[in-house]
């Protein structure tokens, strides 16, 4: 079950540590991703979570969805708190206060908490080399406060602070490439994943657990509410994002880049944009412009396939 297209549901980890009773919207692929990640990470895990949807929907007393130790911190510092937890555990083990065993420390945040306000804390944690996993659940805008653009919002998407209208075509900047920024820290493992490809995701979380030092996972998290689309299309959209080259699945292991689902023939970008209300205002010329850029980025990635970055 190492490949993205292998389907063997019975091999999927069965125990849930992110359980039912949360308040996520219908069709939320982010919460699905969180559940899958923690199915793999298992019981011996401590999570530091930034402010965001996942905090709000999972932790309001008495409905907590977390069956493992979990701490909510501020918006900008889950990577710093995870660093502290990891260091604290290490000291306690060194001093013999707690038995030495593997406890996985995880920092998590959305795209705003990772790419914008929390980038400094993330960079610090990756540079210091803490033995932790940082997971960015990327739903491409600030959804918790009601759909504001982030630096991870794709070009052309309408949000409440990048509205589409006479003066604006929605988001006017290109999506910030956080996985590559993480990789530039020369950490042992960086990967992109998507809950639309659960087995690929599971394999990547497993790899992230095995490395010594920091691992960074960037997970595509379709948000039907914020993307103005039908909730039942969440998984399909995740697949289209990969098939059109908008969100390629790849990993960088000890510097070596591997595209996990090579797509030499990219699907037309329109297939991906059309079902989403946030792109409804885009005309054909703009879509063509975006497609050019998306495909160029994908070809760039293809040229680096198998190379040590």
């Amino acid at each position: 079950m190492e490949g993205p297209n292998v389907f063997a549901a019975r091999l999927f980890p069965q125990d849930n540590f992110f359980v039912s009773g949360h308040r996520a919207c219908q069709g939320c692929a982010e919460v699905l991703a969180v559940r899958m990640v923690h199915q793999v990470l298992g019981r011996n895990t401590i999570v530091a979570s930034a402010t965001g949807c996942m905090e709000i929907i999972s932790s309001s007393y008495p409905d907590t969805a977390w069956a493992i130790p979990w701490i909510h911190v501020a918006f900008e510092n889950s990577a710093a708190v995870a660093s502290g937890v990891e260091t604290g555990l290490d000291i306690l083990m060194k001093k013999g206060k707690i038995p030495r065993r593997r406890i996985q420390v995880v920092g998590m945040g959305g795209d705003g908490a990772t790419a914008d306000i929390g980038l400094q804390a993330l960079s610090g944690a990756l540079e210091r080399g803490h033995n932790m996993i940082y997971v960015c659940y990327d739903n491409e805008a600030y959804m918790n406060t009601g759909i504001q653009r982030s630096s991870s919002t794709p070009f052309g998407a309408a949000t409440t602070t990048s509205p589409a209208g006479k003066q604006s075509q929605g988001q006017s900047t290109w999506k910030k490439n956080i996985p590559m920024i993480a990789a530039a820290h020369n950490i042992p493992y960086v990967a992109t994943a998507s809950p639309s490809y659960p087995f690929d995701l599971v394999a990547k979380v497993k790899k992230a657990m095995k490395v010594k030092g920091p691992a960074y996972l960037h997970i595509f998290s379709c948000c039907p509410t914020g993307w103005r689309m039908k909730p039942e299309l969440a998984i399909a959209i995740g697949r289209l994002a990969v098939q059109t080259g908008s969100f390629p699945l790849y990993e960088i292991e000890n510097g070596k880049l591997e595209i996990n689902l090579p797509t030499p023939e990219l699907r037309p970008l329109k297939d991906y944009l059309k079902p989403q209300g946030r792109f409804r205002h885009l005309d054909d010329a703009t879509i063509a412009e975006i497609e050019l850029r998306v495909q160029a980025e994908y070809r760039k990635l293809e040229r680096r396939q198998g190379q040590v970055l």
Partner: protein
Amino acid sequence: MSADPKGVLTGVHFLDGDHACCEGALAAGCRVVFGYPITPSTEVVERIARRIPTVGGVFVQMEDEIASSIAIQGAAWGGQKVMTVSSGPGISLMMEHIGYAAMTETPCVFINVQRAGPSTGLPTLAAQGDMMQARWGSHGDYEIIAISPNSPQECFELTVHAFNLAERFRVPVMFMMDESVGHMTERVVIPNPEQLKIENRQPPTGPKEEFLAYRPKKNMVPEMAPVGAGYKIHVTGLTHDERGYPVMTPEVQHGLVVRLVDKIRKQRDQICINEEEQIEDAEVVIVAYGITSRVVLRTLQMARDKGLKVGVFRPVVVWPFPEERLRQLAKQVKAFVVPELNLGQVVLEVERIAAGDAKTILVPHAGGGLHDPLQILQVVEEVLR
């Protein structure tokens, strides 16, 4: 000077406080806003994002509040009227730059739609817990102006006024809304542009070669040179002389910091705005600001129905505090009753001023809701018993 008609949405509207605040900023001539989403202030920037391009302005969503609060100051030195918008945790992140604005005398407006804290607290519920932070939050001695509106109409009018004060005194103005005022929808009347009084920073009057960027005029405020007009300016957070150059001596430090403080403290009479209700014969005066100043009107009515001699005093501008008027009142009344949506902040100022003349009683509320008018009435009755 009257307002630029482009930014004035003249007419009768049904708006919430956040949206009215946005219209106030545009009417005041604000054309550059940097912001970051945070409940319950997001509606301000959402409306700004839609409206400001239509009046020739720019909204930029920054990567965090730290960046927003200093980017506005870059734009202010570029000649623009600017503001940023946030709430509790975001305002906490901005603190270093509020001190910077006070030190560099950069005109700018900080909208704070207060929510209950500390930390993340209650993001969607009201509080008035940032009043002392607004005044003292950054390190060192400085003074700011803080305004506390209690209705969407005031969110419009007083936002215009906030910009005027920022421009006149070259000081950061904290606009202390709260979640209830921000999310309350009421009738808002926006007048014609010529009915709005708009103030702008004082440009240099003397010859260019004699211009000193921090030489105070009679009102203790230096003239502000437009960028690119050939005046020599130097902007720094370090202690600086009248030229703007850093000087590390106690004398220059004293001269500068005392002026920064005095330009507000000693010109309080030009800044303070108060409202008084039935205060002439009052034995007990309720001191309330922001949303609480509306809650206490019900208390006042109930008290008067019972024949109790009660009045209400409302500082519309909270910082600087209306010391003189309150000192007069302290000689007239038995006690001040101070309900606040915090555990005692502005009450400390009232107590300091009234000490020896009148009692001061706090009616605390940790936030997340509003006071019950009855609860305040009970305190008033107890005092009068």
